[in-house]
């Protein structure tokens, strides 16, 4: 009996030892959604998933999805997949941005090992959504304002796309050196795109200024160089002053080029403003908001409109697809039938007549095949890439938006690669038929793939955004007569039909080759309405949306690349990119 018990015990230990690696699986430890658990529906929301693994080293697929139903009860699934490599006994935080479309449908987070689902969890998000964009308060002792979400500096996003649901960031007692390079780049990208950073200085200034903020020409790459670039003043110093009947710490400094005094109190600047791209940095001389109501009524424009996204729908729809000539095909087929009918008279009298007729049918088939499959008609996809590169003189990065519309002639399983910071699917306002789901996959190298199934004779629309290094610029030299403009193009593509705008006047600069610089005298202004008339329909469409509201000096031009969208085989693509560099700071 004892022997049996011993064998049984040994067996159980053996099973436990062999089964352990099989049973050990990765686990989802925690999921952190949005800012303090809150999100804005429709905007990209930062999500951090903490994973742990007690099993063997393995590559998993982390999938986040949400099933959304529209008013017609039509279901669509928003899905994002990321491969995750988890070593033995490791814990990893996976951070990504996901657009939460529905406020009622749960968020599904799953972990796959190959095709097998191994972990799954559903998150109820019904109580977590916000009606309006967020205001974040960074490095404040406590939640000083009821309308902002206090965020730890370490938790500030590392991608500018994560800020999509954020309207304002209030900066408190925080040394910019505490932010990582990725966090600084993210905040800067968000500013370019229209964010508003409100720096409350006063007593916070000693922490904020660190040691390098007053350096004359700080390097952009360093934290304090970056900070100095954002601040509207230089040589800032705090002085004690009496304000509203009490003594406060008051920041003073020299106004930088491009900045302005937004508000004054007792004849002294209390708020300075510096535009950064479409965004603003507001520096408040105190550590609190004295003009709260005024700041909240900021005139921040919503840069993303449905009309912008529909431009591509309109432009692609107007494109013409070259198909084999109906007239040629009809004529050949009719002649063939007539020929068969007539040849019957001859064929009945000849033994091999039928063979010759069959042979002529085969020859005609080959001729038709050659015509139908000639390179002119062999394209599977016809696409249009409309883009806008918005740059600001003096800023190191530019904001590039690209709308991509593609018409599919055939059925395909597509994997559209896009090199961008964000990519989303656009739905036409008047869709003629429902389009299937699109699944986004982000590889460890950061490459983004949009996977979907294209139907026959169907269209798809996408939008991508990215921050790119600004490699174009211009400089107007007024010290000479007549004034000259110097335009440089360090990109890999020529800048076509460039014009320089000076107030209401336009001056033609011509095409600037890649990696080239030209100097042109600003002598004869061109007629604006004639120039507009000469633009193609697509170019005019882009200019009317993005270029027509420009005031001051600017450089406008057109480029046919580079496109963030990878070119597929058998694709005929038209790329039209408006390059717009505003001379906001020191251009002249």
């Amino acid at each position, binding site marked *: 009996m004892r022997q049996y018990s011993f064998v049984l015990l040994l067996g159980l230990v053996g099973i436990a030892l062999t089964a352990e690696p099989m049973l050990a699986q990765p686990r989802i430890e925690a999921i952190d959604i949005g800012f303090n658990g809150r999100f804005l529906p429709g905007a990209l929301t930062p999500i951090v998933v903490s994973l742990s693994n007690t099993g063997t080293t393995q590559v998993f697929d982390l999938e986040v999805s949400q099933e959304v139903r529209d008013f017609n009860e039509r279901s669509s699934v928003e899905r994002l997949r990321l491969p995750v490599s988890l070593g033995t006994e490791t814990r990893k935080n996976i951070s990504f941005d996901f657009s939460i479309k529905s406020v009622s449908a749960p968020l599904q987070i799953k972990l796959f090992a190959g095709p097998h689902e191994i972990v799954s969890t559903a998150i109820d998000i019904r109580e977590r959504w916000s009606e309006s964009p967020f205001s974040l308060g960074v490095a404040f002792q406590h939640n000083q304002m009821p309308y902002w979400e206090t965020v730890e500096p370490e938790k500030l996003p590392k991608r500018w796309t994560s800020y999509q649901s954020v309207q304002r960031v209030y900066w408190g007692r925080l040394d910019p050196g505490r932010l990582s390079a990725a966090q600084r780049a993210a905040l800067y990208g968000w500013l370019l795109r229209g964010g508003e950073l409100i720096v409350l200085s006063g007593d916070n200034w000693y922490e904020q200024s660190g040691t390098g903020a007053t350096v004359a020409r700080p390097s952009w790459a360093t934290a304090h160089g970056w900070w100095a670039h954002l601040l509207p003043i230089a040589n800032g110093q705090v002085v004690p002053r009496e304000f509203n009947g009490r003594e406060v710490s008051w920041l003073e400094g020299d106004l930088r080029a491009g900045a302005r005094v937004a508000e004054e109190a007792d004849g002294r600047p209390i708020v300075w403003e510096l535009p950064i791209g479409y965004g603003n940095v507001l520096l408040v001389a105190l550590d609190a908001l004295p003009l709260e109501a005024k700041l909240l009524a900021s005139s921040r424009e919503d840069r993303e409109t449905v009309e912008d996204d529909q431009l591509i729908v309109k432009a692609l729809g107007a494109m013409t697809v070259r198909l084999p000539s109906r007239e040629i095909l*009809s004529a050949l087929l009719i002649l063939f039938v007539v020929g068969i009918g007539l040849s019957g008279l001859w064929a009945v009298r000849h033994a091999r007549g039928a063979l010759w007729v069959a042979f002529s049918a085969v020859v005609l088939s080959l001729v038709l095949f050659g015509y*139908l499959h000639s390179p002119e008609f062999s394209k599977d996809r016809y696409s249009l890439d409309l883009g806008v590169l918005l740059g600001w003189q003096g800023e190191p990065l530019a904001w590039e938006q690209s709308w991509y519309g593609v018409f599919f002639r055939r059925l395909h399983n597509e994997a559209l690669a896009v090199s961008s910071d964000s990519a989303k699917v656009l739905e036409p306002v008047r869709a003629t038929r429902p389009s299937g789901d699109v699944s986004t996959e982000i590889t460890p190298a950061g490459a983004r793939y949009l996977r979907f199934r294209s139907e026959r004779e169907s269209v798809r629309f996408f939008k991508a955004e990215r921050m790119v290094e600004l490699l174009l610029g211009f400089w107007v030299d007024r010290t000479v007569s007549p004034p000259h403009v110097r335009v440089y193009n360090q990109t890999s593509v020529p800048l076509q039909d460039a014009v320089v705008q000076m107030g209401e006047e336009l001056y033609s600069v011509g095409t600037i080759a890649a990696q080239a610089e030209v100097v042109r005298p600003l002598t004869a202004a061109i007629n604006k309405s004639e120039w507009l008339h000469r633009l193609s329909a697509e170019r005019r469409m882009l200019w009317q949306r993005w270029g027509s509201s420009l005031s001051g000096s600017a450089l406008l031009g057109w480029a046919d690349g580079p496109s963030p969208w990878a070119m597929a085989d058998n694709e005929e693509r038209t790329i039209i990119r408006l390059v717009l560099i505003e001379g906001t700071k020191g251009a002249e």
Partner: protein
Amino acid sequence: MRYYAKALDIVSHMELVTPATWSTYVSYLILSGIPLLMALPSTTRIDALVEPRLSMLPIFTTVTTLLFTIYSLNFGPVHAKLKKTPREIQTSVLAHVCLLLVLSLPYWTVFQGISGHSIGRVVGALAYLVLYGSCWALGGLVIGLRWPSEIAQFNLKYALLIAGMLGTFFIVRPLNPLLTLSIWFGEGSLSEQWGFLLMGYGGLVLVVLALFVWVTILLGKREQLREGGIV
């Protein structure tokens, strides 16, 4: 080269072209050509191409399939009347089916070009069509040999055709040409339909073989009766 010459010799001795059969070919081309001409697209804007509209391509495949079946069926009774050897009759009826298909090749080439289906799919569908047409041609030959009355032949032919077409929508579906061609020319993956297609082709081959044997027996009996001076 020797086999080629032999095949050429066999075909040369066939009466593939008679005034009666030639009108069959021409009417087949005219009737199936109309929906194809209507399906031809022309250079146009993308927003017009994606608008929902009636596609004539499925109508072309349906019309062509039905006409091919009917004309193939009619080749049978015509051949039953020929005073030739059993081998010559069997070869000729199948050659007529093949010639009908060869003459429609320009149509299928245009269809492939404008539909965007792969050549493999079109070839697969045409192979099915030839087998299916052969079935009905041999079936028609059996009818012609067993029931000499033209009224009986007419009634039997079309009753069988309608029953065969409708019946295979519900049972032995792989033997329905419209269903099988909808797989070849559909938007689904073929890899999920291999079983269905295999049953379709296998079933047709078996039916052709069975009918071929039956026709051989019937023609043999007729030959014996002829030699005996009864017919």
